């Protein structure tokens, strides 16, 4: 909730230059900022409000409404366990628990060394591959509890 500034707004200006100065661009701009900084820095949010001519309170409201945005930095590698219905039926809950056990973090949390963030998502559309775990950009299908250690092992090394 409390903002964390990034103190380097140069990438932000490039992002703002890509879009027209209007409210309709807000979500697209914030997504690019999230991608560039791995979170939404408070000073970036302020600059976006200024840059698009949208009141700060409204930008903050949008930033906290959508799941794509985080106000605190995420880990280098994002581990997403899909909790869609097909995945749930095929044991996704157990997978989340295994990740919690192995990585020592709960969904929404980041490891102390900032290498991994665990998140749960509500269906990524790969239902025939249930249960699905996405590590970074890589999709793993038909994951069993026993596979988790291996999958995460590669993520930890990705982070290094």
């Amino acid at each position, binding site marked *: *909730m*409390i*903002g964390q500034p990034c103190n380097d707004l140069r990438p932000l200006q490039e992002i703002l230059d890509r879009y027209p100065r209007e409210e309709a661009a807000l979500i697209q701009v914030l997504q690019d900022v999230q991608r560039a900084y791995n979170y939404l820095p*408070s000073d970036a*949010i302020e600059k976006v409000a200024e840059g698009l001519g949208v*009141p*700060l*309170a*409204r*930008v*903050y*409201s949008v930033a*906290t*409404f959508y799941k794509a945005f985080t106000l605190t930095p995420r880990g280098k590698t994002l581990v997403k366990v899909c909790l869609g219905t097909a995945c749930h039926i095929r044991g996704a809950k157990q997978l989340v628990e295994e990740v919690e056990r192995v990585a020592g973090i709960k969904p929404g949390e980041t490891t102390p060394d900032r290498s991994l963030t665990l998140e749960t998502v509500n269906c990524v559309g790969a239902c025939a591959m249930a249960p699905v775990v996405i590590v970074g950009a890589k999709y793993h299908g038909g994951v069993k509890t026993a596979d988790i250690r291996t999958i995460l092992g590669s993520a930890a090394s990705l982070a290094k």
Partner: protein
Amino acid sequence: MRSGSVVEAALRWQQRLSEGGFWAMVTVTVDGRSVKVREQAYVLEACRLAGADVPTLCHHEAVEPYGACRLCMVEVTRPEWGGHTRMVASCLYPVEDGLIVHTATEKVLDVRRVVIDLLLARCPNTPLVRQMARKLGVEETSYEKAAEPTDCILCGLCTRVCDAIGPAAISAVNRGIGREIAPPFKEPPPACIGCLACAEICPTGHIKYQTSDTSRTIWGKTFEMLRCSRCGRAYVTREQAAFFERTRGIPASYMGLCDSCKRKVLADTAAQLCVTR
């Protein structure tokens, strides 16, 4: 903080104007009573004109209707619908000529009771909610009481009035069950001008503030009060005066007098004009 008599007076005035052919009118039937109501009105207005008691929480004449509390829901139908009815929020459903409205059917009462029951679980210690619940026949909530009770019913009136007439300093933050009204980053809002419109429109008194002759604090932000140059009363904040100048071009000298002194000065000026004639 709503003055019932002011609203009633406004509605009576509206009725007189409508009878005088000032607006295009339509005829709506509410609980069997036929009323004429202006064409651009929403059903809630027709209900009030007909004397029906439709409760509301997120509605206020000063801002656009929002449809969030769902207490004002009514059942509507039309002769040609063959008995089919719709449950609609009367604050947002536009009137139509020939519309038939029922404000106290089983379905309507069911919804009202469930809504107030749910609010009672969220705000068990809030007088307005308890009062409304009692009136609707809900003594105790059927649900789990909130671990941290609040007075905020999330009606959104504060954010809506701030957006409409103010600097849009606060907003609804997070979504779903985590939703709350807060300034950005939960810090004193940079845009707030301390006008107190949010606190005044809040139906439960949830928004707290302190105000004195010299300063005012709300949302954790402190403001300097401006004193009236004629009577010395503190009546607006410096930031509020600056906001009106910035956004509406109202000069600072105009804000130098409080409302009642402005009226006195105007009356004096008018009197002088008459004398010189």
